[in-house]
């Protein structure tokens, strides 16, 4: 099944700023360059250094130069580019907005970065069936604005929604604060049009809510990080827009109080839209900001938002406050207006810039643990912080146990990289030990590939690799992602 190749193309060399490309693949020949120009037009393909540099990174801040950059306008073009790449043995790396946090769109083995941002038409908003059909380059918030004008609602709300693309959301299965109540990207994708790694155009799912015909390929592609196919069209499920929302800020004297409050709210049969928490270390970073309403005794806080019909909200908010009242609460506040709600969210938004002031380098991990284990995880993180003497601040989506763990270091200190590597490994091990997962929404890419084995056993990895190899025999599509080159599981394949 596999074409003989002198080197293992699942290799995982990660030198920053790689100039040469790993062997196994071919360079872009004059012939291929010409063919690409004929296909997408001279203006939409470039081998210039300038363009290679501006397409060499994503939000991980790592850099790998591609050999070429191509902007696609149609599925047909995508298909033809993929076929050319197969013929010429050159990797293809799909790229949306390049806001990924795990290196998904980094051309770690050179090749062609295929940019999809110009495929950005909203093709249809079907108000009768509550669906939207879009091209992959549509920006998440743009779709949300369009559907909200029609009193409809597309819930997944990654913090990057003003600039990330829906194609990227599908590829990473993006989530956000609202996911406690509404679920993540995969809960909204009904159907996909996908260009396969060998250049075929296939259609998965459809436009209906129910569909059990054949394998559920839609789910296979969601979260596949551009390694199994290039999404060229997406059909999404929409909801009616909730009439109103209510935001509450609840401050606690301890993380235990906050954690028990989360359980109490859920056990009280209330599913808030969002349940965000900030731990004591995070609070320490923003406490000096006098504009934020944080009281002195506060050691953890929750931002709780409920949504629905206006008349229900008041009651829900009261119930929430009653449920948590005995749990070490030191202060509560319920927004009475949009402005007050904004002021509460400002607390959450002020975190990222403030955290950066601790140290120049941030390792941002998005682990998930079962909701009830959040306090255990936070305590374990505090111990790690103590033991390795590195600041770790934690905040995130308490409602679904998704914690954003930020290890803040100064990499210019000697030996710091090794320390960070150890700390991260420990964090992921603890996460898995607690029954959790090493990534809730950002994906694996290159950043978490070294830790994949902590969560997935060898047989499972081999199963996944078998799928990848069957669909992409020449490993053309986004090579070097998710799995390590020397993954033991590859042996099980031979």
């Amino acid at each position, binding site marked *: 099944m596999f074409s003989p190749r002198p080197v293992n193309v699942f290799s995982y060399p990660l030198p920053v*700023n790689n100039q040469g490309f790993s062997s196994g693949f071919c360079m872009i020949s004059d012939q291929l360059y010409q063919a690409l120009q004929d296909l997408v037009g001279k203006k939409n393909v*470039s081998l*210039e*250094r*300038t*363009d290679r*540099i*501006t*397409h*060499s*990174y*994503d*939000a*991980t*801040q790592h850099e790998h130069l591609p050999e070429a950059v191509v*902007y696609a306008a149609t599925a047909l073009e995508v298909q033809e580019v993929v076929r050319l790449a197969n013929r010429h043995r050159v990797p293809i790396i799909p790229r949306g*907005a*390049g*806001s990924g946090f795990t290196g998904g769109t980094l051309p770690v083995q050179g090749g062609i970065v295929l*940019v999809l*941002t*110009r495929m*950005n038409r909203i093709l249809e908003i079907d108000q009768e069936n509550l669906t939207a059909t879009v091209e992959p*380059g549509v*920006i998440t*918030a743009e779709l949300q604005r369009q559907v909200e004008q029609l009193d409809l609602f597309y819930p997944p709300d990654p913090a*990057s929604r*003003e*600039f*990330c693309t829906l194609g990227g959301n599908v590829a990473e299965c993006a989530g956000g604060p609202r996911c406690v109540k509404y679920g993540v990207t995969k809960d909204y994708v009904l159907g996909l049009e996908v260009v396969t790694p060998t250049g075929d155009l296939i259609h998965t799912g459809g436009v209906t809510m129910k569909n059990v015909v054949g394998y559920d390929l839609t789910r296979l592609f969601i979260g596949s990080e551009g390694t199994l196919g290039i999404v060229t069209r997406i059909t999404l499920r929409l909801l009616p827009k909730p009439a109103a929302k209510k935001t509450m800020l609840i401050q606690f004297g301890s993380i235990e109080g906050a954690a028990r409050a989360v359980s109490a709210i859920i056990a009280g049969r209330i599913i808030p839209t969002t349940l965000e928490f900030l731990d004591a270390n995070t609070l320490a970073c923003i406490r000096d900001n006098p504009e934020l309403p944080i009281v002195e005794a506060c050691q953890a806080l929750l931002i709780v938002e409920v949504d629905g019909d206006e008349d229900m909200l008041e009651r829900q908010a009261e119930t929430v406050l009653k449920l948590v009242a005995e749990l070490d609460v030191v202060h509560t506040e319920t927004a009475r207006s949009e402005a007050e709600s904004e002021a509460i969210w400002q607390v959450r938004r002020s975190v*990222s*810039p403030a955290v*950066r002031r601790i140290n120049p380098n*941030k390792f941002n991990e998005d682990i998930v643990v079962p909701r009830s284990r959040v306090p255990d995880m936070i305590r374990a993180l505090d111990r790690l912080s103590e033991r390795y003497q590195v600041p770790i601040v934690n905040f995130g989506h308490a409602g679904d146990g998704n914690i954003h763990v930020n290890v803040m270091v100064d990499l210019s200190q000697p030996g710091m990289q090794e320390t960070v590597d150890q700390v991260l490994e420990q964090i992921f091990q603890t996460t898995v030990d607690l029954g959790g997962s090493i990534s809730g929404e950002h994906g694996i890419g290159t950043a978490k590939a070294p830790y994949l084995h902590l969560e997935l056993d060898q047989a499972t990895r081999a199963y996944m690799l078998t799928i990848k190899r069957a669909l992409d025999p020449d490993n053309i599509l986004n090579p070097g992602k998710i799995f390590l080159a020397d993954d033991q599981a590859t042996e099980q394949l031979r």
Partner: protein
Amino acid sequence: MKELQLFAEAIDQCVRCGACQAHCPVYDQERSEGTVARGKLALAKALLNGQVQIEQRLAEDLSLCLMCGSCVLKCPNKVPTDQIVGAMRRLITADQGLTPSARAVSALTGSPRLLNRLVKTVDLLSPALFRKVPSSSGLRLRFPLPGQHNRTLPATASQSLFARFPEYTQGQADRPVVGIFAGCATSYLFPAIGAAMITLLTRLGFSLFFPHDQGCCGIPARSAGNGRLIDQLSSANLRAFSRRPVDYIVTACASCNAGLRQLSVPDGPPPFADKVLDIHQLLCQEGIDRQLAALPRGRQAVTVSYHDPCHLRTRGISEEPRRLLQALPDCDFVEMSGADRCCGLGGTFSMHHYGCSQAIGRRKLPGLTASNAALLATACPGCMIQLQDTINHAGLPVRTVHSLELIIQALDGQRP
């Protein structure tokens, strides 16, 4: 390279989050990474560490920036991309010389004398710079530059502002001395705006210092990457305003406001940074908004909306012009959606990329149309030119005005 080096630390502050994509008007059109702040900063870094040399594509990407500062405002680390682009453009200019349109702009803004004479002898000079066309439907002057043949421009005024007002006007002894910075567009294209500003400030009892040897604020030169001209204009303006001590320097042009603030000396902080005031700020300080609100209301109001010039909006000045407009007795103020979107002018940007500039301008139209405004007020003559051009091309029955024109009319009991 030395100048870019000064920004090395700022460039490193870019964490490549990509948030600027949501705020860059050029990216919104082009949707390519080279046009957005993150891409430009990546190129700046690559230039600094020798990973790339100045090449045609790099110069093209750098020309695709309005220097509007929208990205800076929303950047979590406030990386000053607009200034970094300025430094890179100067580097390119030093390396490759000025482009033809940058040369034209520099010739124009670099010489008050040339401009002055130009006004008097438009016909004589027009083959070189401007060409007069029949004055039908607002289409009067055209740029003889490639890609500009469709641009509609206001006519130059018959008498410049300098010919109409003296250098010094004594006000009440206990009131501050205000320096007047007019700017090119106000002096030569829209002297009525400058006249309104000077008249209002005189009535308020300020002493006015209006040095006639002031030059261009330097924004077009910055946009064109003409480092030598920026220095020349800086020293000309410093010299002009050092002739008399002033408490503030007031301008009615958002771009001049930005230009004066950025005006720099070799060592030491920018000398005018704390002195420059937008005219609307000063009028609000003086209670003109309350004075307007107290005027008797007319029966038939004209609907007026407001466009935020980037150079004011990114400095947090958006409240004051609105407060004044809302207080106008014969106007109904309506907020239009997309009021804070860039008009697309961007200094020399619209000369290099008129098509893209027009497309950015057109993004204003849905909001403007929905607002039903008959007048579109703004606080920058540059924006006025661009907005009116956009409106002309769309064939909308809307006139752009400077808010000052409406304010002085109202105070004088005239209807807009």
